[in-house]
């Protein structure tokens, strides 16, 4: 049982890293959103498994929240925003997909090594989970850095947040309040960003975040 528990949670956490990579790889917005839903599904499965293994029923709630909001509500909202704004559906990367993936690999290696250093003594399961969570966070950050399009920046931010949830679920005894707080903060962020997107696109006819930069230059 112990072996299986380890295998499944490892598998799911790794799946989360895998979907993070797939997110990095996508170059169409709708595909990006679908992939994000997939990641949310994997996340909720992972959290649910943790709930089962740790026998912590409140984690089921977390899993459900993740499934509801992240796999369904947020992607649908973003879908509608994209459709409403008529955003160009190709994502422009600042750097090529290959380079991005290579950078992502380096980040995963970095995460592994860091966890090896600071949590070398901890048991393998916790360490690997933490390493994966850190990887997801770093990959989300990377995505925010390399993407021009504001929508994909939002997705990057939210996948970053998924990494935090993964880390939290792995650690035993995290209270439910925190999760609610995190979930709602993301929701609020989504609303804010949605409004923001409308604003940008009204102003500049584009949601290319670099349009903002040029604005700043002019303002000076």
């Amino acid at each position, binding site marked *: 049982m112990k072996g299986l528990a380890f295998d499944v949670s490892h598998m799911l956490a790794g799946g989360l890293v895998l979907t993070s990579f797939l997110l990095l790889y996508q170059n169409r917005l709708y595909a990006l959103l679908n992939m994000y839903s997939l990641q949310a599904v994997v996340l909720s499965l992972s959290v649910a498994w943790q709930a089962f293994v740790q026998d912590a029923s409140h984690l089921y709630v977390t899993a459900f929240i993740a499934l509801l909001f992240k796999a369904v509500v947020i992607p649908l909202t973003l879908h509608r925003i994209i459709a409403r704004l008529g955003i160009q559906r190709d994502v422009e990367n600042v750097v090529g997909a*290959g380079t991005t993936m290579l950078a992502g690999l380096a980040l995963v290696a970095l995460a*592994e*090594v860091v966890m090896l250093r600071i949590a070398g003594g901890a048991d393998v399961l916790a360490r690997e989970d933490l390493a994966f969570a850190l990887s997801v966070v770093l990959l989300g950050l990377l995505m925010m850095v390399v993407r021009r399009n504001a929508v994909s920046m939002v997705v990057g931010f939210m996948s970053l947040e998924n990494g935090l949830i993964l880390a939290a679920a792995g650690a035993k005894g995290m209270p439910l309040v925190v999760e609610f707080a995190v979930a709602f903060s993301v929701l609020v962020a989504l609303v804010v960003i949605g409004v923001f997107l409308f604003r940008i696109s009204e102003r500049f006819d584009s949601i290319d975040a670099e349009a903002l930069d040029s604005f700043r230059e002019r303002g000076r």
Partner: protein
Amino acid sequence: MTAVALCLAAVATLLALALAGGFVAATSFGRALVYGGTLALSLLVLLVAGDALLVGAAGETLMLPLGLPWVGARFHVDPLSAFFLVVVSLAAAAASLYALGYGRHERDPGRVLPFFPAFLAGMILVLVAADAYTFLLSWEFMSLASWALVMAHHREEQNARAAYVYLVMASFGTLALLVAFALLAGPDGHYAFAAMRAAPPAAGAATLAFLAALVGAGSKAGLAPLHVWLPLAHPAAPSHVSAMMSGAMTKVAVYAFIRIAFDLAGSPDWRLAIPLLIVGAASGIIGVLQALMDNDLKRVLAYSTIENIGLVFVGLGFAYAFRAAGFPAAAALAMTAALLHAFNHAVFKSLLFFGAGAVLSATGERRLDKLGGLLNRMPATGLFMLVGAAAISALPPLNGFVSEWMILQSVLLSPSFPQWTLKILAPAVGAGVALTAALAAACFVRAFGIPFLGRPRSEAAERAGEVDRFSLAAMAVLAALCLVAGLFPGQAIDALAAATDLAVGAHMPSQSSMPWLSIAPVAASRSSYNGLLVGVFILMSATTASTIIHRFASGAVRRAPAWDCGFPDSSPSTQYSGESFSQPIRRVFGRIAFVVEERIDMPRPGETRPARLELRLGDRIWNTLYRPLIVAVERAAVQLNRLQFLTIRQYLGVVFGALVALLVVLATWP
């Protein structure tokens, strides 16, 4: 006579031959004498060294009263030097045989004949030298002889530049080796290798010596980023000399590195494996990418030498790391892989340079976009070139595959490293090796396919004919060797046992006891490969298929114009050229090694001039590393130029100041 005495006798005869070559150069007898002589002597060395390698005992040290009076010159043949003697003499024998015919095309034999035996003598001397002084002297002799050969066609402007760059880089390399030996010799000045071995240097000095050796030997071997001279110098020489430089001289540099880093520098430090692995993998990828982009057949081969030397150094890096981590069996595997790849590369790179030389003498062209369709006009050369290209692309059942397979097998043993740096580096290097191998296959599809297949792109290619028998014989021997070494890798591995014993203190399990002549580096359940069976299976299934089809279906053939989707174009320039072939790869990988500049000049509708695509490739390494250096040197030269216009009193003042400064240093030396 002992092995070392025989080798020295061969060297003496070679030097005499070099002198004689200067006098009889103009005659055809001179050619026969020199190349016949080098052929006989290199075969002698091959026999002697092969025997020494198989016997595997450390021979005696011969001391001659040459050189520095209180040091003398020591010579010694142990299994490691014997292995490299085999490589060098094999390449030299093939090159001599080839040159018996190819030398006829030489316009100025007086610039080649004296230096060819001298070059060979220099390489043999480096390999048998057993003290630092003799080693460096022979090394410099080898460099200068090969420099003279690069200058053989000095009237072409780019050759003169190549020779200049080569001279600068060779001097730099020798300087680095001098530093390495100085550090190994220590304050007491142990010049002899045996004495260095007996008194290993302190850790810091050993590290510095290792790095100096990597720089010195690496620059001669063509490791990135010290490789820039190689693609200029190797192709500039006559083709049989190019073969010797790429096939043999780079191996002498590998020998120098193994001798210093594995044999003399004391116990290994795992951190030093990191630069070795990184530099090896980087050389592999950069070399093969450059080879893919270049349009000159001989330069493609020279760049591919950089790639293969990179693979050899990856093998050495793993061997070093395994030795440092205390896994002798794994170290032996990696070392065997490196040595075997060095041998294989000597064989197929010589073969390919011979083929390029044959193309050059048949058409007068080296540029890929002026060749084409040569397989129909030079069928034998084409066949041998094809074997060489397949071997260097690591296709089974030829020899190149065996050594690359073994390098990958040693990658698979690397999770057992205790250090996480190596753990992460190992799969990255392994992926780099795989990428290099795959790109090499693409490179040789291009390097063989563009000149030998398709339709002739120039009149010279159209009129080409088969080359002479000596050249063909040399190529045939090497092509056969590619096949034999690929079919019976176990024998080759067993022959290397003594050399790996010396380098890493262990050797691979004997392969001759394996059933069916297969090889298994660690255990049969882990991985095994049988070149012979794979070869036989391929042959069997190909003949079965063709027999069945010809017997039961149809054997009729009709010749017709090419179809080309209904749009055949009679102009040969509509074919894919070398540049267009590598365009997709350039687009994907080009930016790793190049600054790519593409300009499309598209005429407006109605204009009658043709559209043009201009492509400029800037070498990143040259731009970032060498150009600033050159600028700095030039600036310093301008500054120093002022010293030329001093008065006599000022000159004396400078000399006096220097003397005083030296004395002060001496007085305050701890």
